[in-house]
């Protein structure tokens, strides 16, 4: 009650007085142990790891060598800019670097790249009570009034140090008016005035501010660097943590040192020796760590994705119940599942691209960028997806990420997650590609067998024929003397390469046509695009093509260009989409429609929702 009362009174004060209060806030935020209250033994002033282990020298900052080197050189060569902007994600060292820079500039033995951390100036800055270094919370003091206060104060000489330094943290929250008021001062501060701005969201800072600052982008810290730092801390804190556990923490931290330290803190609160120091603490290994952090075991993710792929909703529900019983966080599980399905999709895409299988192994650096996973898990991923089509995996991913939104919003995340998993496990159409292709061919055969299709040949094209018939014809010829389809493709490829050497333009057109029939005898190609058709039908180009064909195949060749405009080029990628359609001969209606209208299946879209 007491507090509420005093609050109310404060807000009733006349405006002028409140303004003064705002002015008073520009006093530096205390960072250190200002309030020393040793007279209360109970639960006092413990400094958490992230604060205790805040670097005090440029050299101690991990993973930002590109920045500390520039700053060091700038100080050594006395080329110090008057305004810096530090950006980067949370917990990578922006504020730390700003404080070190302030100490380096104002150190009594400086300006030096290695502040002594012993002189009055350094100590004052560390404790947050230096009268020439102002660390301002830009998110709380964000209005034009506070900025005016800075402009007003910076005109006066520093009290006892070399420079008057303003560190404005969380600067992205400063209002538009505030930024604009700062512009002139930021461009030409007095010779002793320095600004260091720090933010996680540089895109919210006006360009006019950006162009006046030297900008440094802090990087995410690699998990190896984080792990090394953590092991130093752990050694010093008498904490026994295995290498594996440290690596796991640093992976969880996603490149942020503070996140990693917070996680380590969490581990400490479970297993640290007590203050009395008699207990030596428990050894923390990966298993215990998973338990402490409430992280879902990777195995659960694989079990779930396997159950989904196998179409076993019951198993999904059982697994969720198990996770629930362990008291783990379901929203987190759901987010990790999104990542799992994303990984599955990418693994599948790599398989398709690599084709041969050894292709992707060699590019381990690329792999590292795509997955943050150990090799063993990559194998597991590959094992799970080898039978699935990209389309199916896309569907899984889409449903899962939609579901994740629902889980995050829902007041009963369990239900939302269960429903999503059931939806996934009962998604239609997880047919292996090979089977789909087979079915498609079956349909094709039936279609062409029907005959009597009303084809309307596009005008001005010779040798016009329907796709189906062509295919059949080719197949018949092929059985006797021509090469098999794979060989055919290889020959066509060589032919293209041959032309590519001399006539690039022609070759690039040919790259997109379908070879219907290859020599000896005739070269028949099907063209699906009108502009390409026009180009290839041009007598001059036709002759050129014929010449090349004669030279390449070393025999007399007739070139026939057929139009495929308006028809489907059944390439392999599309067959995947067709699979659902070409269901064991039940699609009479489709066949009938195709027959009556003389059309072909160009694209099959799945209904978005059911």
């Amino acid at each position, binding site marked *: 009650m007491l507090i509420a009362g005093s609050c109310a009174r404060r807000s009733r004060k006349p405006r002028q007085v409140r303004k003064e209060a705002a002015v008073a806030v520009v006093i530096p935020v205390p960072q250190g142990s200002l309030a020393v209250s040793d007279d209360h033994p109970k639960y006092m002033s413990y400094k958490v790891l992230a604060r205790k282990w805040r670097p005090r020298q440029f050299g101690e900052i991990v993973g930002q060598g590109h920045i500390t080197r520039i700053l060091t050189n700038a100080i050594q060569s006395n080329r110090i800019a008057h305004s810096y902007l530090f950006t980067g994600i*949370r917990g990578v060292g922006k504020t730390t670097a700003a404080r070190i820079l302030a100490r380096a500039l104002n150190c009594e033995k400086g300006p030096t790249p290695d502040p002594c951390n012993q002189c009055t100036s350094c100590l004052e800055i560390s404790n947050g009570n230096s009268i020439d270094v102002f660390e301002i919370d830009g998110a709380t003091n964000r209005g034009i009034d506070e900025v005016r206060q800075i402009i007003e104060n910076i005109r006066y000489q520093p009290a006892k140090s070399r420079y008057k330094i303003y560190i404005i943290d969380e600067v992205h929250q400063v209002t538009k008016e505030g930024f604009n008021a700062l512009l002139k001062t930021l461009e030409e501060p007095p010779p002793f005035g320095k600004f260091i701005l720090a933010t996680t969201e540089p895109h919210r800072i006006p360009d006019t501010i950006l162009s006046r600052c030297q900008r440094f982008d802090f990087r995410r810290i690699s998990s190896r660097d984080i792990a090394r730092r953590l092991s130093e801390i752990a050694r010093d804190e008498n904490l026994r943590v295995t290498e594996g556990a440290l690596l796991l923490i640093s992976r969880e931290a996603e490149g942020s040192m503070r*996140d990693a330290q917070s996680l380590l803190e969490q581990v400490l609160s479970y297993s640290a020796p007590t203050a009395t120091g008699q207990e030596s603490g428990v050894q923390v290994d990966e298993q215990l760590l998973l338990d402490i952090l409430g992280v879902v075991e990777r195995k659960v993710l694989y079990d779930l994705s396997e159950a989904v792929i196998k179409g076993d909703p019951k198993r999904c*529900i059982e697994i969720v119940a198990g996770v629930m019983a362990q008291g783990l966080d379901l929203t987190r599980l759901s987010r990790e599942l999104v990542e799992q399905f994303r990984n599955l999709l990418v693994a599948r895409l790599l398989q398709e691209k690599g084709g041969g299988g050894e292709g992707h192994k060699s590019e381990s650096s690329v792999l590292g960028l795509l997955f943050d996973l150990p090799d063993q898990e990559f194998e597991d991923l590959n094992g799970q997806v080898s039978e699935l089509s990209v389309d199916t995996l896309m569907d899984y991913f889409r449903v899962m990420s939609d579901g994740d939104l629902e889980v995050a919003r829902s007041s009963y995340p369990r239900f939302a997650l269960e429903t999503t998993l059931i939806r996934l496990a009962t998604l239609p159409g997880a047919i292996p590609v090979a089977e789909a292709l087979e079915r498609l061919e079956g349909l094709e055969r039936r279609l062409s067998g029907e005959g009597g299709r009303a084809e309307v040949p596009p005008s001005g094209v010779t040798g016009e024929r329907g796709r189906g018939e062509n295919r059949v014809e080719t197949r018949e010829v092929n059985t006797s003397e021509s090469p098999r389809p794979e060989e055919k493709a290889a020959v066509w490829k060589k032919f293209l390469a041959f032309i590519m050497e001399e006539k690039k333009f022609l070759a690039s057109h040919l790259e997109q046509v379908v070879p219907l029939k290859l020599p000896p005898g005739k070269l028949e190609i099907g063209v699906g695009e009108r502009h390409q058709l026009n180009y290839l039908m041009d007598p001059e180009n036709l002759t050129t093509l014929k010449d090349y064909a004669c030279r390449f195949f070393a025999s007399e060749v007739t070139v026939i260009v057929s139009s495929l405009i308006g028809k489907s080029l059944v390439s392999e990628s599309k067959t995947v989409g067709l699979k659902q359609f070409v269901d064991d001969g039940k699609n009479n209606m489709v066949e009938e429609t195709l027959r009556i209208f003389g059309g072909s299946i160009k694209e099959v879209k799945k209904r978005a929702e059911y």
Partner: protein
Amino acid sequence: MPFTEIVGHQKQLEVLGRSLEGNRLHHAYLFLGPDGVGKRTVALSLAAVIHCSFGNHDSCGRCETCLSIRDGNHPDVRVIKPEPGKREITIRQMRDLQRQLEFRSFSGKKKIAIIDPAHLMNIPAQNSLLKTLEDPPGDALLILISNNTASLLSTVLSRCLRLYFSFISVEETAGFLEGRKGIAPEKAKLLAALTGGSLGEALNCDENKLLDQRKRWIERFSSLSQGNHRGVMALAEEMAADRELSLQVVQWVEGWYRDILIHQMTGPEGEIRNTDMGEKIHEAASTHPFKHTLSVLSWIGRVKGELQRNYNRRLILENFLIKLVDRNPCGPGAVPT
């Protein structure tokens, strides 16, 4: 309330206890977990442990300090929530808080601020808290309470020590209800299953309302027959009269369909919530195609969102109910042809 009297959350309490013992209390905690499982209770208990002058590593729960913390008028323990009539916690409240934290505590112990719920802080408020969260003045302890991380800035998350709270098990809840409220075992179990491990909800709800009304509403829903548009209109009108009621009923119906789905997927041994309506669920599950159940569930999800955003209730509900009876010739319990 002393730690020993808290239902469930043994692991979390142990962590806090260890930190207290080892004098390793973090300065900023984030308590994460579903609503109504007792996060705020734990936070207040922690405050009591720190301030209570009698207990040793636990509060006594009887002294003046403990009582004043429980009743929310201890000068060093503040609970920050949206101001009356507002939906968000604003930057003004944060500035106030920061000014308060600058002062030394009245009792000479920690100054504790509990922000509940933290996800209602708007973006400027969260930003303005950042510096305080990182380097709070000497003896401050901040406890943020939230049911999700999605609406908190990553910069806030990274500065807090997270403690995950999960649902209390149905058995524990039922046991507590039996012991504390003197509810018959059978009923206690049903209540616990219905509130799904949210003790706060189980304690605060009017049990008769929950048990009887739910049953009545669900029965009304499941007895809607095909093309009964007149009935639909009447039902929609009745539900739409009150926002809370409509949300509540939709929630019940969701639970009902979820039970049907679980039953369809796992058979009779599945873990259902509406334990008193087992037979009906079995009947509906065997006549319902599960795809229909799935689509109904996704409709309900949408309806819930729209109701919360204050769209025209009657329109939404009519639309939903018409879909329900039209796609489904013999009422929600039958197979569409």
